[in-house]
């Protein structure tokens, strides 16, 4: 399935519903669907805020492929900026002491929730972020 929505914060909520319904169709268990919704939200927000640099009028594309007991989701933006992870994520202690920015947890959360996650090659210059979720078929 493919989905395209306006690159504006808030619209990732629609993507959540679409992908959750798709995962449910495939027999994905409830806990994994929740994990997927959260990981997807973070990926979409990265696309909106970083990849598309909060530029109004742009769009985010999400594609899903379900095969057996795995669901592959790709989030594409226009690539106005690359936004690779900066390495280790600041701990909450650093954040509480004001030594690290409070935001920037998205990629960490994705890495912990998805079975595979990372950037893939893109021919169009945009960021292509791919996450894969394995699940127990209901």
């Amino acid at each position, binding site marked *: *399935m*493919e*989905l*395209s*929505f306006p690159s504006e914060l808030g619209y990732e909520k*629609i993507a959540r519903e679409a992908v*959750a*319904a*798709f995962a449910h169709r495939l027999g994905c268990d409830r806990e994994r669907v929740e994990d997927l919704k959260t990981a997807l939200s973070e990926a979409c927000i990265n696309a909106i805020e970083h990849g598309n640099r909060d530029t109004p009028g742009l769009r985010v594309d999400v594609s899903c492929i379900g095969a057996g007991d795995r669901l592959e989701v790709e989030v594409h933006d226009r690539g106005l900026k690359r936004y690779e992870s900066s390495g280790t994520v600041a701990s909450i202690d650093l954040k509480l002491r004001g030594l690290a920015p409070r935001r920037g947890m998205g990629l960490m959360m994705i890495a912990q929730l998805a079975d595979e996650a990372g950037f893939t090659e893109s021919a169009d210059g945009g960021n292509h972020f791919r996450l894969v979720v394995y699940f127990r078929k209901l």
Partner: protein
Amino acid sequence: MTSPNNENEPAERIIELRLPSRLGYEKVAMDTASSLARRMGFGGDRVEALRTAIAEAVTNAIEHGNEHDADMRVLVMLTARPDELVVSVADQGRKQLDQQKTTPTPKIEDSFTKRDKGGWGIWLIRELMDEVEFTTAPSGGNQVRMVIHLER
């Protein structure tokens, strides 16, 4: 620098969904559309009506337009405007919908004998939505355009 509010901002937001032509996937369209409609401020009844109408439209596209061909897609486009939601559902098929079938007045007695119970779907769509139009999609397939008005 002063910039007037909303001067260049489009008044509409578009969400596009492309689904596989397999029964069951109309649920994805239903959940996506109802999620948007609820957030736009449509009340429970209207959201339910939309769910039913879109379910019928997508099911028709899967069964009749695309004839269950797994390689074909159902294209759903949701256009959110300040005072209405426009939903268009198109198939990629080459089987043109008989225009006569788009204004059915099904009688329940007919359904007992007819094999194709499909007339009710289109009738339901017309009953539930504020505006309904059957046309040909840019891609050549059948397209139904449905509108619900947002009452404030």
